[in-house]
Every structure is written in C-alpha cells, then in structure tokens.
C-alpha cells in the first residue's frame, strides 16, 4: 500500500511537534504521537476545543462549525485541528476555544 506523505506539524510556542499524513487530521495525528499539545473534544468540527491558528504552511479543511470558526477567522488561518489536513509542513498556535472563553 502506498504510504501517504507525512508532514511536520509544530507548535510555535513550545517547539513540540508531531508528524501528520496528508490523509490524517491534525488532531488524530497529535493524539497518536504527541498527546496533550491540543485539547481534544468531539473530533468532528463541532465543539471548538481544538481550535488553532496556522501561521505557516498549507492545509485543507473539512466543514467546521461556523459558530466556532467564522468566515473571517478561517481566512486568517484559524481552524479546528480535527478538520484540518496538512499539505505542507505546518507551524501553529493553540487558540483558547470560544467555549472556554464564553
């Protein structure tokens, strides 16, 4: 079986990182190899617990709750890690989720 390309995904603040395949969500890859870097909630783009901002690199996203990531935020690199798939190496920042700051 062909192996999906793996990319390095790094937390800007701590330098901690994990590897993530192009067909794997950032959150699932994080849970398997470096748990604790990002908070884990529903893993379905609904709860907002795993909100990050990608500051470097390209990625694709699947549908994310508009309540958690607005159109403007999405354009600024905000994403839910459970719905983001890397296309290059990435640098990210953890964002306090809206549920926690409400």
């Amino acid at each position, binding site marked *: 079986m062909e192996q999906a390309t793996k990319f390095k995904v790094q937390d800007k603040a701590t330098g901690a990182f994990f590897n993530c395949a192009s067909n794997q969500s950032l959150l699932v890859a994080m849970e398997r190899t470096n748990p604790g870097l990002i908070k884990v909630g529903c893993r379905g783009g*609904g709860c907002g*617990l795993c909100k990050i901002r990608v500051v470097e690199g390209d990625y694709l996203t699947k549908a994310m709750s508009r309540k*958690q990531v607005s159109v403007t935020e999405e354009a600024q690199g905000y994403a839910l890690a459970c719905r983001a798939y890397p296309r290059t190496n990435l640098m990210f920042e953890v964002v306090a989720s809206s549920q926690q700051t409400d």
Partner: protein
Amino acid sequence: MSKGVMRPGHIQIRVMDMDEAVCHYRDRMGLIETDRDASGRVYLKGWTEIDAYSVVLRQADEPGMDFMGFKVVSTEVMNQLKQELIEFGCQVEVIPAGELNDCGERVRFDSPTGHMFELYAEKKQTGKWGIHPKNPDAWPEELKGMRAQRFDHCLLYGDDLDGALDLFCKVLGFQLSEEVVDGELRVAQFISCSMKAHDLAWVRHPEKGKLHHASFYLETWGDVLRAADLISMHDMSLDIGPTRHGLTHGQTIYFFDPSGNRSEVFCGGDYTYPDHPVVTWDADQLGKAIFYHDRVLNERFLSVVT
C-alpha cells in the same frame, strides 16, 4: 401524573456533511433510512419503532439540535396542552401538517433553557421495520452496525433548570425521576413521561440551548460491547465507555457523529412509577453518578456540547 404525552417521538439534528452523517446514523448506528424530503433532510428510525421515523438530519453550518418532539395521545390533548403552554408563558408556534413528511400538525414551544420542543399527535405508522406485524419474529436479519432499536432520550445543557422542570412537570405531566443536587441547587434533572428512568434530562450550564447527546436503546450489554467494537473498527470518535452510569444505572457508551454531536447507545437502567420517590445523587458524588466504574468525570463530558 400523565397528561397524555406518550414518548420522545423525534429529534431534528443539524449536521455539516450529510453523507458523513448518514453513514454515522444509518450504517454505523444501524438506524433505518426511511425517507428524504425536498429540502434535503434525511429521515431515519430505529427498527423497533412503529412510527415512520424518529431522527431527522438537516444540513447546516453548525451542529446541534433544532428541536425534539413528543408524541401525544390525541389531537384534542395536543390542542389542550397548546393552551396550557401559552398560559405558562411559552412562545408557541403551530407548524402545519406535512412540514415534516408524514407528520400531522405540530405545536412548537420554547423552554426556559432555550431549547425548542414540539408536541404532535399524528405521524404515519409503518410498523416495526423488517418483521411481519402478525406472528412477528424476534428481529430482522438485515440490520446494520449497532442495530439501534429506538430513539430513547436526550440530555440537554441549559441554564434555567427550575423553569424547564416546572414547564414539563406542571404543564406536560412529566415526573422528576432522578436528580443531582449541590446543596439547594439542582445541577442535573432526569424527567420521565413513562416508566423509563428518563425521557429527557438536563445538566445546568451557563449557555442556553445546547445538546449534550441523543441516545438510542440497545437490548443487551453484549450489544453495547459490540458497539464499542464497531467504534474501533471504523475509527469513530469515542468519548467514553463502555461503562455504567450511577444515575439511572444504564450501561452505556458515548461517541460523536462526524459533525461533533454526541451519540449514546445504552441498555438496561432503572424504571419509575408515579409513586416512586425521586432518586437523589449529591454533587460531590458526581463522578460516580455519571461514570459508576471510573468514578471520575472526564472534562469532555462536562464541556463538549453542540
């Protein structure tokens, strides 16, 4: 005492990707897809349910619950309760017959917790799926996934639990079956319109109108373990379980649909009659009340809602 509300009859759930959602509810949980409508909504039911459907999925840009509907014994009862809901102070709206396929007129009302509920008396009855109504066999062989039997209850998160309890008990004839109290403050309440330990439950939470989970009934603990196997086989998002609850004592597993709405499948659990005293848990025993074996709450159970 009963005022003619029979059972949870349907829930409309918002999902962000319909194909993924149908895979979850139909192929993984084993609900039967029974219909689709012009607006793209998908209708499903547990195989033992008599009515045409109990779950309606609607594509939206955020997850959560649109409304939960209860079936009442007659149109007369629905109209009587409509008046009482208005007198109680609810915002009441009549949804015309046919807005949901094969469903009669619905009386929609808001709750002090910000959730929307409905009463209805008529829905097409298609009978149990896959078995003959006369001399019925035990179960149909064609079921998929977890083989969920029926939509059973919801747990909702919201702020004004006392207002919601007043509404459902005084106006709609539910009874409080179980509760969690922190001194004078009721932080969780389980209410019933039947013999079940809960048909609906709330946990106190600052934000209005949130869905914690929609729950579906399985027959045995073996079925719950089998559901856990399927969750691993398909790399589904597990929350917690298999385990047992202290509250209601049901045996359970929690997981998430692909839009982040929490699902539960469970079996067993306590029963209630109108003369039963309320079962009370103290908030300092909350870990055991929710997860009877671990006796510790995971943060996700309290904080992740849609």
